[in-house]
């Protein structure tokens, strides 16, 4: 009985110590990525390549998803608003829902599964095949040359993708609400213009998506860098990236929302 308890306690202790250890390693890793950023600024081409790799290649999924989310929002929003006789407020509903929440959050979740997983796999395989080690031995710092540009590429791409997602979503809402259902076009746009605030709504949405970009890209980079150098190790790391990023995005969204939109 006591032996079983002892074993159980030891296991819990191991798990806790491992988690703290990993958190420490992740913090140190994040610090190194940030501290070695000068190369990403000095050679913008490196960062631009990564914006293409993480951002531009995620465009299709972001555009299609944004459009469909907007279409659904338009349908559901109209159904609900009609009950209260305020179908003209559809533009406001669609825009606020997208700019404040759905744009940043859904595009971050898509970004984690499209670009985050690709980053983890790329770094994991570069590490497993000793490409990062080889770079170190060629006196090229992999943090400065590879990891930092990917980080900044992700941080810059994320708000742009969220903006595109929201824009396509609004267009989807317009298609359903105005073109198909027949809500008044003038009311749709003017209510939206009157009720969406540049600082309160749009800027806060951009800040959110930048924070998500930091979180998702750092998680993806760290999981890749920390992956055991085996096929299984890299595959688990990719899974962990998607799961951890998704949870981190949702948790951060709650925290940020509670700071940004209280009392509005």
């Amino acid at each position, binding site marked *: 009985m006591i032996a079983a308890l002892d074993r159980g306690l030891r296991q819990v202790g191991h798990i806790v110590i491992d988690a703290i250890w990993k958190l420490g390693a992740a913090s140190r890793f994040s610090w190194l990525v940030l501290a070695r950023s000068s190369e990403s600024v000095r050679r913008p081409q490196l960062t631009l390549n990564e914006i293409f790799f993480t951002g531009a290649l995620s465009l299709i999924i972001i555009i299609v998803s944004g459009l469909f989310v907007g279409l659904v929002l338009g349908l559901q929003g109209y159904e609900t608003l009609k009950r209260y006789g305020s179908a003209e407020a559809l533009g406001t509903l669609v825009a606020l829902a997208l700019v404040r929440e759905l744009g940043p959050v859904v595009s971050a979740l898509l970004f984690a599964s499209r670009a985050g997983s690709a980053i983890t796999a790329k770094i994991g*395989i570069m590490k497993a*095949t000793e490409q990062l*080690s*080889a770079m170190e031995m*060629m*006196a*090229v*710092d992999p943090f400065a040359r590879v990891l930092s540009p990917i980080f900044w590429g992700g941080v810059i791409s994320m708000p742009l993708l969220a903006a595109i997602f929201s824009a396509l979503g609004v267009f989807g809402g317009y298609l359903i609400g105005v073109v198909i259902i027949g809500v008044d076009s003038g009311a749709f746009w003017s209510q939206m213009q009157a009720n969406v605030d540049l600082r309160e709504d749009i800027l806060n949405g951009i800040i959110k998506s930048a924070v998500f970009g930091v979180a998702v890209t750092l998680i993806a980079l760290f999981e890749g860098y920390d992956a055991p150098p085996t096929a299984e190790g890299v595959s688990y790391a990719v899974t962990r990236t998607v799961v951890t990023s998704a949870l981190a995005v949702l948790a951060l969204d709650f925290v940020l929302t509670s700071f940004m939109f209280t009392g509005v």
Partner: protein
Amino acid sequence: MQANAPSSSRPSPSNRVQSAAFLGLKPCAVSAENLVELRDVEFRYDERPVLTGINMAIGRGKVVAIMGLSGSGKTTILRLIGGQLSSNKGSIGVDGQLIHALSHRELYALRRRMGMLFQFGALFTDYSVFDNVAFPLREHTRLPEPLIRDLVLMKLNAVGLRGAADLKPEALSGGMARRVALARAIALDPMLIMYDEPFTGLDPISTGVIANLIRRLNDALGATSIIVTHDVEESFKIVDYVYFVSAGVIVAEGTPASLRASNEPFVHQFVHGDTDGPVPFHYPAPAYARDLGLEHHA
């Protein structure tokens, strides 16, 4: 043994030390005729000792092999010399500088003068053969692109793969990938070239080609080479000196000829490939009869 006399064009040791000082690097009390010196080096992984009491002196211009069984700590020695791992005890000097005393910037400055060939080449899979070899040149020099092109083609020509410049790494055989990696390792004309298991998994022709290249490039570049390997036949043909590592300690050292004649049991077993000896055929196990359940019946 091939020609290993220092060529006249090779910089003298004193010039090397002066050039280190010129580059603003910290000199230390390491003897001038040795490029690499390890003194009482100890390395532990977690609490498990990997290397203990390692002493080595690798003379300038020499090709030296570090041999031993898989897992005996050979590759760790290379990583310690390259500063990718740091020792728990002892000192490692490369070209008059103590590795553990260098700052990040100084270590990277020293690494510019080292080349390392990884076991499977470690080529950048996104880049073509040409771009792989051009990588260190583009990162560390401001040479115009036409000049880089000429240099890359010269390096590729030295390993016989000028014609493969446009191929991607996945289109290369194991031996070719290693030759490209070798061209990349010598791109900046290093003073020290380290080879991690350069012969593993290669056919006999590729093995011979790589072995030949190691010796020729070492002498042509006036470099010093360290080869980590367990291939006795090929390496004994090209090296000047050999260290045998077993279970983290150096058990024997000498020239290939003296080691071939050695009666030291481990060296004899290793050089002649005997199946049993100080390195047992059987992994430690309980008594055979007990494992088969025969002792109960007896």
